[in-house]
């Protein structure tokens, strides 16, 4: 009987002791595009993301209206004319770390990873693969990545009039500081 109770409790203990899921609600995603006529730069410090270190799966949720530009008018046009934020308020990413075995989440250090998954922007989903790094620190996990996206791939229509001002490809920077999600 004692062994039975032990067996019952053990799995629960394992789940509680090793936090499997890490979360952040104020991760950073920014993008930058440069043309001789205009630089376009926006920051979003309210990105929500969950990383499951047991499976390497991770998801991101980005509220489009939380992207802030230096120029208020640019921000309005971004939401109104390009992203149509009232119709499509969120962008999401669902993916996983493909080389999970090369990361030791128990050992403090920095690890190079490859992430692949589905990126949905403006209701258009594309498969992307990108390189990044996972940094295991004592308080949690940091994740960083940089990749390029092409607005046209997501049916974001840029009219001829302003095509010279908006870069064909935008550099996206992702900086996440995850902390363990207490299991309920």
């Amino acid at each position, binding site marked *: 009987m004692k062994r039975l109770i032990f067996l019952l409790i053990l799995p629960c203990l394992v789940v509680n002791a090793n936090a499997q899921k890490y979360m952040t609600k104020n991760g950073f995603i920014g993008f930058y595009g440069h043309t001789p006529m205009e630089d376009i730069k926006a920051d979003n410090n309210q990105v929500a993301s969950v990383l499951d270190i047991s499976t390497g799966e991770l998801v991101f949720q980005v509220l489009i209206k939380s992207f802030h530009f230096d120029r*208020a008018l640019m921000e309005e046009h971004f939401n109104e004319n390009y992203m149509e934020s009232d119709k499509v308020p969120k962008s999401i990413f669902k993916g996983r770390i493909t080389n999970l075995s090369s990361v030791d989440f128990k050992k403090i250090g920095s690890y190079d990873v490859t992430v692949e998954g589905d990126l949905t922007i403006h209701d258009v989903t594309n498969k992307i693969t990108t390189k990044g790094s996972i940094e295991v620190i004592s308080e949690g996990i940091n994740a960083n990545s940089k990749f390029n996206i092409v607005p046209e791939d997501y049916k974001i229509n840029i009219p001829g009039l302003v095509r010279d001002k908006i870069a064909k490809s935008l550099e996206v920077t992702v900086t996440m500081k995850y902390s363990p999600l207490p299991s309920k």
Partner: protein
Amino acid sequence: MKQLSVFILIVLFPSLLLAQDDLMNLLNQNTAPETNYTTATFKSTRIINGHSIERMLPGQLDFRISHRFGMLNSGAYNLYGLDGPANMHFSLEYGIFNWLMIGVGRGSYEKTFDGFTKFSILRQSTGVREMPVSVSVFTSAALNSLKWTDTSRTNYFSSRLSYTAQILVARKFSQGFSFQLTPSFVHRNLVGTELDPNDLYAIGAGGRIKLSKRISLNAEYYWLLNANNQYMSQPIYNPLSIGVDIETGGHVFQIMLTNSLAMIEKGFIGETTGQWRHRDIHLGFNISRVFTLKKYPQKKQ
């Protein structure tokens, strides 16, 4: 015993195998719902002549130049008004706080200097905080700087002044359609004769239909409540304007047909002498160019 441990494994194992969708649900459970404020109810701070609910955000400067050409019924010799006489108005308008913008301007109509403040009281929103309409309060003062026509009598400086107060109530019904009601009050310190009322009351209505993402069709009408043309020294009519907004990045071009010549409230509400049915119509345009003087502050969350 063995059976039991297998059973326990089966029961507990799925919790370790959360799929991405479950991660997404987890994310949704852990993020608070937000208030989503409506933006871009109109493309510009004017519907056509009158102010719209739109405001300059803090640190943004709007430089506006507006023209109203001569009357369409002046014929081909006058190129339907394009040869003039044209009226112009230019202004600098600035957002101080998220809820306050101010502006100063000068118009050739009665050589008028004008200044205004616009307070954003309520903003249309959905989500945590639901608000069906946006409401702003607009106040302005105008100074007529024409030389006195009658220098034999005592002319007071205050006689040059007139004031306007408006409540702007607007709703963006959909991406394509916005509508605004504008109860207005105009006070003139000095009027032409004692038959003319010093105080005028009017209700404005204006709306826009988007033709494409960057082009919208606008219309605006002010209904004068207490003008009695039988007795007034100069008959005045309700201003009706129809126009198109074209937005090109930092500029908004507004091109319109209107029966009023003035581009400030006191003028187009109280002194519109032209009538559409007599084709006393002016072609006109407003050009708005927005400059960023200060970085737009990030919203706190």
